């Protein structure tokens, strides 16, 4: 390594600078002595002893190379020569001193003096090197410290930049959120407006839609009374059936529209619960028989007396739920149960439950079926028919009564729809036939021509009770003849 370093400086000045430095320092310490340094590379620093024969010099040098301390040699002219190997400098030091000429092996004081002098000289040289090393170290420390400062500055600069960026980003995010919120709000407003307009329109269309439908149903009934060929009769009956089911659909849509437009209000009156259920049961009796279903209604014996409530709407709810149960059940059980949940002096909480042993509803669809136009799955509609409006209306009606429909269902085993409503108790007698029915139902009483055709239809239908259409029943109500559509 030292050779390589020497290489670097070979072309510059002489490679013996170190030796010359050492020589100068030694000479300073031992001004009396004559000192010569012989480098291994052939360099000679200091005045060589003039009287010294070259071969003798070689002997001394080769002896010194082996020895670890001074060796002494008596010269032919009676003087002494002392030699020391300096390993670090790759050189041999020769000391010749007239006055102190003596064998160092014998004179330990002199040996100590020389030893110490050389050691001092070496230390001084080392000291110079240490000074340089120290200088370099302090420069490196300066570099580190200035780098430290620079890193601090730079990190601070980055910190400011990042903070700035974050602020900008936050601002951007904020304005973006505000913009999107506004957009959503606007969209929502216009959607609400559109929905309200649609519901208003439908609610207002009620009369306009029902009137012509009733004319079609009525006149096709009348037409069936006339003399017809078998084929014509078949056509007329098809018209009658089709228009009856269309009317059901229209009524559903109109009901829903009315509820959504907030135009439907409950009409609480005193009513008799048992009578209500009996009516519902009668309605489904024949249909149940046709599909091989057992249909039963049971009221908790603890429930007595009359209540105040919107009998028609409760009936509509039960008919809808029972109708559904009937639609999806074949050769099974369908039941309506009414139980008392709570009672105080003024009111009673009743739980209505409609259960079936039909196909059931998968868990993931149990929420969706209460939405408009939805059934448990798309294929249900094709298999079982229906508009998907019934449950939406039902759940809206139940919530109008401050309650909520609960559903428990296991696919393949059946479903139970239930709700709890609070009804005020009353001692008042129920109207034998609720007036509300007449008001709410599609009354065919407005124009003379319609009345003339409505009358026979109603009579005809009541005459043939063997198979009344489930959802289209004639009622006599406060002297007004009309058709109630559930």
């Amino acid at each position, binding site marked *: *390594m030292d050779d*390589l*370093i020497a*290489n*670097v*400086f*070979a*072309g*510059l*000045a002489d490679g013996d*600078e170190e030796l010359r430095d050492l020589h100068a320092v030694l000479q300073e310490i031992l001004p009396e002595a004559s000192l010569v340094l012989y480098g291994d590379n052939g360099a000679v620093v200091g005045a060589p002893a003039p009287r010294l024969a070259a071969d003798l010099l070689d002997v001394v040098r080769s002896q010194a190379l082996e020895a670890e301390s001074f060796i002494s040699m008596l010269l032919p002219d009676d003087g002494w020569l002392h030699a020391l190997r300096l390993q670090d400098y790759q050189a041999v030091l020769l000391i010749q001193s007239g006055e102190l000429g003596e064998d160092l092996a014998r004179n330990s004081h002199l040996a100590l003096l020389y030893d110490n002098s050389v050691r001092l000289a070496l230390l001084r040289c080392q000291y*110079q*090197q240490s000074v*340089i*090393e120290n*200088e*370099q170290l302090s*420069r*490196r420390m*300066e*570099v580190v410290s*200035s*780098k430290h400062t*620079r*890193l601090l500055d*730079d*990190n601070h*600069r*980055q910190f400011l*930049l*990042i903070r700035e*960026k974050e602020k900008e980003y936050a601002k951007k995010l904020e304005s973006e959120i505000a913009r999107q919120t506004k957009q959503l709000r606007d969209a929502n407003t216009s959607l609400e407006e559109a929905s309200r307009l649609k519901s208003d329109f439908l609610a207002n269309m009620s009369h306009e839609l029902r009137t012509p439908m009733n004319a079609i149903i009525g006149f096709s009934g009348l037409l069936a009374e006339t003399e017809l060929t078998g084929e014509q009769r078949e056509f007329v009956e098809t018209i009658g059936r089709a228009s009856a089911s269309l009317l059901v659909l229209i009524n559903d849509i109109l009901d829903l529209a009315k509820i959504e437009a907030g135009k439907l209000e409950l009409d609480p009156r005193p009513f008799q619960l048992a009578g209500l259920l009996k009516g519902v049961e009668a309605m489904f009796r024949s249909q149940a028989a046709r599909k091989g279903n057992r249909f039963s209604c049971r009221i908790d014996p603890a429930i007595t007396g009359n209540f105040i409530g919107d009998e028609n709407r409760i009936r509509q709810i039960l008919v809808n739920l029972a109708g559904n149960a009937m639609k999806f059940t074949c050769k099974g059980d369908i039941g309506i149960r009414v139980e008392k949940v709570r009672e105080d002096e003024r009111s009673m909480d009743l739980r209505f439950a409609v259960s079936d042993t039909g196909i059931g509803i998968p868990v993931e669809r149990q929420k969706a079926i209460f939405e408009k136009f939805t059934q448990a799955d798309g294929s249900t509609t094709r298999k079982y028919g229906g508009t998907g409006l019934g449950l939406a209306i039902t759940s809206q009606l139940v919530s109008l009564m401050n309650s909520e429909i609960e559903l428990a269902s296991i696919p393949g085993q059946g479903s139970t729809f239930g709700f709890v409503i609070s009804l005020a108790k009353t001692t008042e007698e129920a109207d034998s036939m609720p007036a509300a029915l007449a008001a709410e139902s599609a009354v065919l009483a407005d124009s003379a021509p319609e009345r003339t055709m409505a009358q026979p239809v109603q009579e005809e239908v009541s005459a043939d009770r063997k198979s009344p259409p489930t959802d289209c029943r004639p009622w006599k109500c406060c002297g007004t003849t009309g058709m109630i559509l559930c």
Partner: protein
Amino acid sequence: MPSAQDLVDKFTDIKTLPHVAIRVTQMAGSDTATMQDFEQVIKLDPVLVIRLLRLVNSPYFGLSSQVESIAKAVVFIGMKHLRNIVAVEGLRNFFTAKEKEAEFSRKNLWVHSATVAILAQMISRRIFGEDGEDVFLAGIIHDIGLIVEDQLVGESLRRVCTTYLAAGQQEIMTDIEDNIIGTNHAKVGRLLAASWHLPEEVVEAIRFHHRGDREYPLPSVIGILQLAEFMACKMNYGVVNDRCDPLPPYLNTHLKNRMAEYKVLLKALPAEMAKARELYDADQEK
């Protein structure tokens, strides 16, 4: 005979400095880049992330705490230093040895480049009290032109080496290259460095590192690079055996005046090289 630009164009078709390294180099010179930007760019190369973190935690940097993210590395060693390590990583695979390497060896060149880089940084720090980040970059990249020549006109380069070895001590390698190849590695390296958007001073240092006809008052990047190159060659870390261009007179004077200081510095070189071993020793991974 091909021009320097011809060689660079052909070379960049074969090998390019990874995109990440170029982006990092640009960012290191920018006032608006932050540690997050570095992290984002470097993360694109997961292997690089691992290598960088290993190097940052190596004895060369002597950090007292473990650095486990690029952002933290930026905080502790600074952008320019990180740029240098990315450059080392990017260049490493340029220097993979070929089978027959007699007159010219890529492996030797890599060790030469690393030695020059480390020496140059030591000179910066110990003699001039500067951090020498650009000087290090110049050192590691200054002979990249030789790789280009080896790749494209290898036979001619070998003839250059033979001629150079036989020529007199005053002959300069780039002149022989100009005669035989038609251009030289300093010109090629300068174009390549400029295309990688290295700092202007580094590009100029690469361009003139074999020229002795102008003075660049110390501590200039080129002055320090030439000092380091001279010493590395003299200490058997040369490119073509121990052939060495003569130092320009002004640097010669400088070296003579501060010989004692440089001696101390050179004595510390083996230790510094050992500390930086992970930086340049490709076999370290195994």
